[in-house]
């Protein structure tokens, strides 16, 4: 017979989380032997680069959006931010196509693929808002060009790339929150389902 404590929302949530993602799945100490390729490095590299992107972005945010133009330290931090973004996308694209080649959506992992693909799109939008928030010639040109594409969709009326304040807020608050939440969701799904096994070629099996 269930007690009052068993029926608590907290208790139910804990049981559900532990059932779906027990500690040995969340932080495994073994993995299937087929996980033996350099391609697997690019998932964790993407996450590591995301961490560096966020850390360098936070340092850039300390003194406002323009200090890096007049400070050699600020310019260096901007360089760190730029190159971590380049590494992030490089690793992410290889990770994406690697997972495509593995048909990594098999075995009930469709949503893992979907969240990964959406994270890629959100990341592109986050980077774009960063480019138009640089407050330099590059941002002027990109904003004046990009407005035509976005305006053609009707979206420019609400997402005005010429409005620095709006773009900066999207870049440093809204989109990073989205990208990080999606990344967490994606990684949790990977941990819940495990790494997709190799494609079966020769054995007729039943599912």
């Amino acid at each position: 017979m269930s007690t009052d404590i068993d029926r608590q929302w907290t208790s139910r949530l804990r049981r559900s989380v532990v059932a779906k993602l027990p500690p040995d799945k969340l932080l495994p100490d073994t993995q299937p032997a087929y996980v033996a390729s350099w391609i697997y490095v690019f998932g964790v590299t993407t996450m590591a680069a995301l961490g560096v992107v966020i850390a360098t972005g936070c340092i850039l945010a300390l003194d406002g959006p323009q200090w890096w133009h007049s400070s050699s330290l600020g310019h260096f931090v901007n360089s760190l931010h730029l190159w971590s973004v380049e590494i992030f996308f490089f690793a992410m694209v290889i990770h994406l196509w690697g997972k495509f080649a593995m048909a990594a959506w098999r075995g009930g992992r469709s949503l893992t693929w979907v969240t990964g693909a959406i994270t890629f799109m959100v990341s592109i939008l986050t980077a774009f808002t960063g480019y138009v928030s640089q407050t330099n010639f590059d941002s002027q040109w990109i904003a004046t060009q990009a407005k035509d594409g976005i305006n053609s969709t009707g979206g420019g009326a609400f997402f005005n790339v010429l409005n620095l304040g709006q773009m900066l807020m999207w870049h440093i608050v809204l989109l990073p929150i989205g990208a990080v939440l999606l990344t967490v969701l994606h990684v949790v799904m990977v941990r819940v389902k495990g790494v997709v096994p190799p494609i079966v070629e020769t054995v007729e099996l039943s599912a």
Partner: protein
Amino acid sequence: MRKKAYRPDVDVPEWKGRYVPYDIIKEGTIALVVVAILTVALAVVFSSPDEKAITIKTWSNADPIDFAKTAVSELDGTSGVAHYGAPYNHGGPAQGLGFLSPEKWVGVRIAINTATDFVLNPLEAQPTQPALHAALTQWASASSTTQSSWTSAYASADAKMTFTGDHVNVPTHAAGPVPVLINDLTMMARSGALDQALVTQNGFYTTNYTKPLLFLSDGTYLAGLANKQHLGGDQWGMMNETGSWPGQAWLWLYTFWYQVSPYNSSKSGDFMVFGTMMVLTALLVAVPFIPGLRSVPRRIKIYRLIWREHYRESED
């Protein structure tokens, strides 16, 4: 009970093979350290671009004639922005395909009147100057037909425009107050006052640069500088960066469409590119659910390279 057929692009058998030691925390830590070191190394060696922003002051001092001609087009409503359409005004046709035209559906939400916002309001904010005040009064009291005849007379003579002695000279006597308005706006721009006037129309505190950026984009100066930096739309500029730094290379497919027909020749090219990319994006996201597409990995067999040790062991 009938067994469900095994679908190789959807199902996986339960793994019954061996497991090997795996330290996920160590892996993550090593990745973070390696990426941090690589980032620092790249930043130290290659730095990053920071081409200074141009201002209307920069533009009007570097090319006063281009500025003055652009100002006339803003005043007479023939500029790119004046003819843009939504979301700025009703000046031009909306992009779309068939009945699909979200730009038109949304309508004008960031209202821009180029004559008022870019020329007349900034001039009216100037300290009292008798000649300018008289010119503004003459402009405001004239009919739209008369205004058009003045700007037409000015525009038809502006091929012979010169800038000498801090003055914009146009050989016409039929342009009413337009020569004074354009000359004073050019002087205002060259002093830097127009940059301030365009942003402070939004109030004391502002982070919205819509008006000065639109004004800049109507001239040829900004585009000329961008083309020198290989940033033009027909130069794959969307994925380029000033100087020789890498830009948004991940936008290569988006910018690719702008290089080919019919995208680069259609008046609705932007909308067509966006639509194409949305379809491709939807396909990417939905790969697991699309028969045929989800079989591609099994057909191209790159997975054999990735799992070569597994297949070698299986074959042994």
